[in-house]
């Protein structure tokens, strides 16, 4: 059956295509290859998710014909299928979006290689999600991160190189921590397969080696997630990367690491140990709340709009990890729904800002005076995206915040709910600044006339903006899948 091969196809085809692109190097040809492959991955992921949803059985794939736990297993269940759909969807959309923006921001000779790196990064991200093997996840993590560093460094601004270097150092430390943790767990369990590891860890969870392994894995992944205070690589990387890369990076890279963290905390170490017997939930909760406020406060004072949205991402990641810390079904559902919702709305906002970067030339707030009149579609989309970030009812932001708040109430943490409300005001402050400058100030005298961004960019961004509204009303996909995925996560525990 062809569908049995889908797990491998989804990951291996982007790898082959990346190598092909690196040989061909012709811009249009590479773009077409990338687009076809990304779309193929999306269709494959969606088919697998549909199949799992229908039959309730996870798909397991024996890499090279070797049976797990000795061989590498690719494993797609509802949770990983959900993330696969998200990553491949965003990857396809950003390719359609990024054509013009890549032309204006990346040197001619490098554009073919850009698509090669993009495919490699997509392959790595999909691989992290799909693999059922702890070390294989590390290999894919390195594939995605190394290609991501290259993509960030392609930015037009010279500071992109420094930002990429910073990202490289921090990312490598994170990956090293992760692999040390996996190494410790491997020495005491003798297995790398996540399901098998969970079984064997059961009786020896409170040994020092297991606890040390858990600590290394959690801290390493927190660095990749950019959980406060390990977020310092993120703002510069997002701000100086090419616009298309920022949209892709913001919507996928941190989400995939959050997925891996959830897998380790809930599936490998298990609810009964990681949540009930270690201080992990308390630590993550405090850091998430600090991330939400510190990120939003920093966003208010940014002059560069991309950097502002980057700090806002630090805050939004705080919401997602807060759901992990709430550790009940509703909170975790909120967390999973917000992974998707945040990817959609932040992806859309970065795409719109990319359009401004293309037409205005900069994304400094002071240069954006009067842009609203000249680029109404872009700025109107920005307003709607802002509403969604704020959590206005009828947008996706409301749905995920609602689940998080109800989850907090289930734990009796009403003060967390109060803080969530308060944090929305901060979103109003920083999004409001951009909207005020763009709509209520005049273009300076003698400034060049502005046109709307190219159709392909506007349309892709608007599809996502409309999705923000649509998914705010019809939550059957996001919440439906997330609730079942939570059962998968919590089920391993009880």
């Amino acid at each position, binding site marked *: 059956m062809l569908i049995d*091969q889908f797990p491998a196809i989804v990951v291996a085809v982007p790898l082959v295509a990346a190598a092909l692109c690196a040989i061909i190097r012709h811009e249009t040809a590479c773009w077409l290859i990338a687009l076809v492959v990304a779309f193929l991955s999306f269709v494959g992921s969606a088919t697998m998710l549909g199949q799992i949803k229908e039959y309730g059985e996870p798909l397991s794939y024996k890499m090279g014909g070797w049976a797990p736990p000795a061989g590498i297993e690719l494993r797609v269940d509802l949770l990983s299928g959900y993330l696969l759909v998200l990553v491949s969807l965003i990857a396809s959309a950003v390719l359609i979006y990024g054509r013009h923006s890549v032309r204006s921001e990346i040197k001619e000779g490098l554009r073919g290689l850009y698509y090669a790196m993009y495919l490699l990064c997509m392959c790595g991200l999909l691989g992290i999600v799909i693999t059922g093997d702890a070390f294989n996840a590390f290999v894919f993590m390195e594939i995605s991160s190394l290609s991501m560093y290259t993509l960030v460094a392609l930015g037009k601004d010279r500071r992109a190189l420094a930002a990429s270097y910073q990202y490289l150092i921090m990312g490598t430390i994170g990956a090293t921590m992760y692999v040390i943790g996996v190494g410790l767990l491997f020495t005491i369990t003798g297995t790398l397969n996540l399901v098998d590891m969970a079984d064997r860890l059961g009786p020896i969870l409170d040994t020092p080696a297991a606890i040390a392994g858990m600590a290394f894995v959690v801290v390493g992944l927190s660095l990749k997630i950019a959980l406060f205070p390990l977020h310092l690589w993120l703002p510069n990387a997002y701000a100086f990367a090419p616009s298309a890369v920022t949209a892709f990076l913001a919507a996928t890279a941190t989400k995939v690491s959050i997925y891996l963290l959830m897998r380790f905390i809930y599936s490998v170490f298990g609810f009964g140990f990681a949540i009930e017997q270690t201080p992990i939930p308390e630590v993550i909760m405090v850091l998430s709340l600090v991330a939400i406020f510190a990120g939003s406060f920093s966003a208010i004072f940014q002059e560069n709009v991309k950097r502002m949205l980057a700090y806002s991402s630090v805050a939004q990641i705080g919401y997602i990890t807060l759901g992990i810390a709430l550790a009940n079904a509703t909170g975790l559902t909120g967390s999973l729904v917000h992974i998707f919702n945040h990817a959609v709305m932040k992806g859309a906002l970065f795409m719109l800002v990319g359009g401004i970067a293309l037409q205005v030339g900069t994304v400094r707030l002071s240069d954006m005076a009067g842009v609203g009149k000249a680029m109404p579609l872009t700025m109107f989309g920005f307003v709607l995206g802002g509403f969604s970030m704020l959590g206005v009812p009828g947008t996706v932001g409301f749905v995920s915040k609602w689940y998080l708040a109800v989850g907090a109430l289930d734990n009796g943490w009403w003060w967390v709910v109060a803080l969530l409300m308060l944090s929305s005001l901060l979103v109003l402050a920083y999004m409001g600044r951009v909207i005020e400058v763009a709509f209520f100030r005049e273009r300076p005298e003698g400034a060049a006339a502005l046109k709307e961004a190219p159709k392909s960019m506007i349309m892709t961004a608007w599809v996502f903006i409309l999705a923000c509204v649509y998914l705010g009303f019809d939550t059957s996909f996001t919440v439906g899948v997330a609730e079942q995925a939570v059962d998968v996560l919590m089920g391993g525990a009880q």
Partner: protein
Amino acid sequence: MRGHLILRVVSKLLIPFLLLFALYVQFHGDFGPGGGFQAGVIVAAAFVLYALIFGLRATQKIIPPALLEVAVPLGVLIYAGVGVLTWSLGGNFLDYGMLDSHDPSHGQHLGILLVEAGVLMTVSSTMLLIFYTFAGRGR
């Protein structure tokens, strides 16, 4: 380069053996420690030694950078290509047993051989390309 007679003669003597040793490590990978990664590093080291003694230009005449830039992805393609081949023969990705219809263990040998050849190609060209890039700075 006119001087450094001893260096030139010794390195000329050494380089063939370095390459031979690389091949030994490469083919030993089937049965014990070794394989494409280690062998690739040794191959690259042989060329780096040549470049240190006889200069970058002479080395780039033997292996031009443009060739390396193709060889890096080509190695990946060989690796992944084996996987695609096993797909087309009806097996799982990288299921080498499929490569020989009579005896799966022969297929395993063949598969490893091809995959390691791809690894050797990518690793040695990447190492050498990194060396070229650093050595060529400021020219």
